[in-house]
């Protein structure tokens, strides 16, 4: 039995050629895979395996082809010399293939680790993005909330009618709202610049420095004070009454103690209270005076009547006649005082009719003008043409005007000026009759008592002290009021405020 070598020869040649061809094709494919995804270590691994396999396949294939061709060509000796190299190269190359192939497990683990890291990184990135987005939302939401809060509190701060101020413990004004600026009479536009430059001291606005010291001590001790009544002095020197509520807080950022103050201006309220007290007092006095006057008026009338009867029967010139005349005179004086008291108590009968207040002023002035000229007192009148006709008791109103002008004259003494001004105030509506003088003014301590019956600063015999009381009673009887402002040494201003009927305003409006 013989076995031909030709099939082996044929398979060897064709197979070697196929091996070379497919090895190169595998290298190309693996390279294409690697190019597609350079970061994929599995493709890199396949590229390495294919390269090693290609070296093996080419060396082996070419070796086998060369062997067959050299043997067929009769070049055995050449093949014999090449054979060890071809065989060795074959051995080395498939050992390399084997060695590279064994790296699969490690490469696979590296690949998986990369995938895990990549996934973890991606998840972390997504989480970070989400957190970042959420953070942005959170920040924008908080910012908006802060903005709303800031706006709300800024509005309260700006629109408050009471002073809101932030003051350092040493008294330096740190912030103040517009109402505060207005209350203290400081320039609201530049207050903070001014405060920063001059270190505006809030304590200086206290009339009594010890009030500020006490407030500060209380704040430092108790951390808050409530409704502390103090007197403040505006920058223009005017005094105001204020109610302070404050709390103390430690500013951690600035590392200092600051006071937050809310100050309420109660000047008007206090004036109102005083006026109410005055009104109450005068009402009580009026009741008392009315009672006394009523009781005295009748006996006085009887005394006066009988005195006059006795005078009629008594011949003139006798001592008895003179005595009776003295009795009559003093009885009349008493009667006048009683009538004045009744006017003050608004118990006297009044007869009201439409009258022009300007005419009344002129009538009174025509009576007193001569006397005023003698004392070189100038009288100036400013009449508001809008002042309507008022319904009033002309006699009594003349008495009021007379009292005010005479008081002014007495306050001036000699050489001065009396100004009588009328004004129609639509807000009300009301008519203001202002009598101002350049006299000596009224001592502040006397101001609360000037409308009291029988109160007078004049020496005995010069006045009964009923003038202003009677005027007050008459004006009150007309539904009005008397205001007084006086500054010692500069003069006084008496303002009679009489209500104007609403229909008058309408009438005037139509007339205009």
């Amino acid at each position, binding site marked *: *039995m*013989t*076995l*031909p*070598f*030709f*099939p*082996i*020869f044929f*398979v*060897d040649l*064709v*197979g*070697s050629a*196929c*091996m070379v061809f*497919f*090895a190169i*094709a*595998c290298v190309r*494919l*693996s390279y*294409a*895979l690697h190019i*597609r*995804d350079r970061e994929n270590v*599995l*493709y890199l691994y*396949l590229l390495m395996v*294919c390269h090693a*396999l290609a070296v093996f*396949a080419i060396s082996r294939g070419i070796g086998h082809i060369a062997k067959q061709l050299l*043997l*067929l060509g*009769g070049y*055995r000796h050449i093949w014999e010399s090449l054979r*060890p190299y071809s*065989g*060795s190269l*074959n*051995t*080395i190359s*498939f*050992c390399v*293939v*084997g*060695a590279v*192939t*064994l790296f*699969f*497990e490690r490469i*696979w*683990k590296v*690949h*998986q680790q990369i*995938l*895990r890291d990549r*996934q973890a990184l991606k998840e972390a990135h997504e989480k970070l993005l989400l957190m970042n987005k959420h953070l942005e939302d959170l920040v924008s939401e908080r910012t908006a909330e802060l903005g709303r809060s800031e706006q709300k509190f800024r509005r309260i701060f700006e629109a408050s009618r009471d002073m809101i101020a932030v003051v350092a413990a040493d008294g330096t004004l740190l912030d103040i709202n517009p109402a505060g600026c207005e209350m203290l009479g400081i320039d609201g536009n530049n207050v903070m610049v001014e405060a920063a430059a001059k270190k505006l001291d809030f304590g200086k606005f206290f009339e009594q420095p010890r009030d500020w010291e006490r407030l500060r001590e209380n704040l430092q001790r108790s951390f808050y004070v409530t409704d502390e009544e103090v007197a403040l002095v505006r920058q223009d020197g005017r005094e105001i009454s204020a109610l302070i509520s404050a709390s103390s807080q430690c500013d951690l950022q600035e590392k200092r103690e600051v006071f937050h103050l809310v100050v309420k201006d109660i000047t008007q309220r206090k004036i109102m209270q005083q006026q109410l007290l005055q009104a109450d007092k005068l009402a009580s006095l009026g009741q008392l005076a009315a009672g006394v006057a009523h009781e005295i008026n009748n006996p006085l009338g009887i005394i006066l009547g009988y005195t006059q009867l006795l005078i009629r029967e008594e011949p003139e010139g006798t001592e008895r006649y003179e005595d009776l005349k003295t009795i009559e005179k003093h009885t009349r004086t008493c009667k006048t005082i009683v009538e004045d008291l009744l006017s003050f108590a608004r118990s006297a009968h009044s007869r009201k009719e439409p009258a022009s207040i300007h005419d009344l002023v002129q009538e009174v002035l025509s009576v007193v003008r001569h006397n005023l000229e003698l004392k070189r007192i100038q009288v100036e009148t400013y009449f508001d043409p809008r002042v309507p006709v008022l319904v009033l008791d002309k006699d009594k109103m003349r008495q009021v005007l007379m009292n005010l002008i005479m008081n002014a004259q007495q306050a001036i003494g000699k050489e001065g000026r009396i100004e009588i001004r009328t004004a129609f105030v639509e807000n009300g509506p009301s008519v203001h009759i202002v009598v101002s003088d350049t006299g000596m003014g009224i001592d502040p301590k006397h101001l609360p008592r000037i409308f009291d019956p029988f109160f007078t600063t004049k020496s005995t015999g010069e006045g009964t002290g009923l003038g202003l009381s009677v005027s007050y009673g008459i004006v009150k009887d007309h539904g009005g009021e008397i205001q007084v402002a006086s500054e010692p040494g500069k003069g006084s201003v008496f303002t009679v405020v009489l209500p104007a009927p609403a229909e008058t305003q309408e009438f005037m409006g139509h007339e205009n």
Partner: protein
Amino acid sequence: MLCFEVFRGFVRDLYSFPSFKGFSETMVSIAICLLAVVLFPRELWATQIHADPEGLYSHQMGHGFFILSMGVLAYWLRGRRLIRYKGWRYLQYSALLFTLWNLDAILVHHLENQDDIFMKFSEGTLHAYLRPYPGREWLAWIFFLGKMDHLLCVPAIVFLYLALREMRRSPHRFSPQDDTGL
């Protein structure tokens, strides 16, 4: 040690000449040693002689190593369940066929080096043939068939080609969850 010190001293002396400037001391030492080996050869007993059979044995071991690596690759591909994907399945087939080819190559190399199986005639011609010794026909047949080893290795590399082509056509991106372990 003494010889080494004397040699170092000699090198330093040489190094002092201007013409040796620019060369490191180590480079000069190596050059001297190479010159000594070339110029003064002597019989050396330090290295072992590798005679004829060693080449065959190392080649056979190489095949064995190739079998091992391909077997391990196939095992891992199955263990990682990568054979679910067509491309990686082809790679497994390729590894198995390479394994078979290596087994075949080992067998053929072994038989080829046996003197008592067949005799070769007209070697180096297209009419070459072999005649088995009596009683050794089946071994001669095994050798004859095994010698056509390309019938195994060519399909193996074709499967590798198909595997790569499949991976290129429908690439699969693995996820970390694909690592199921062995």
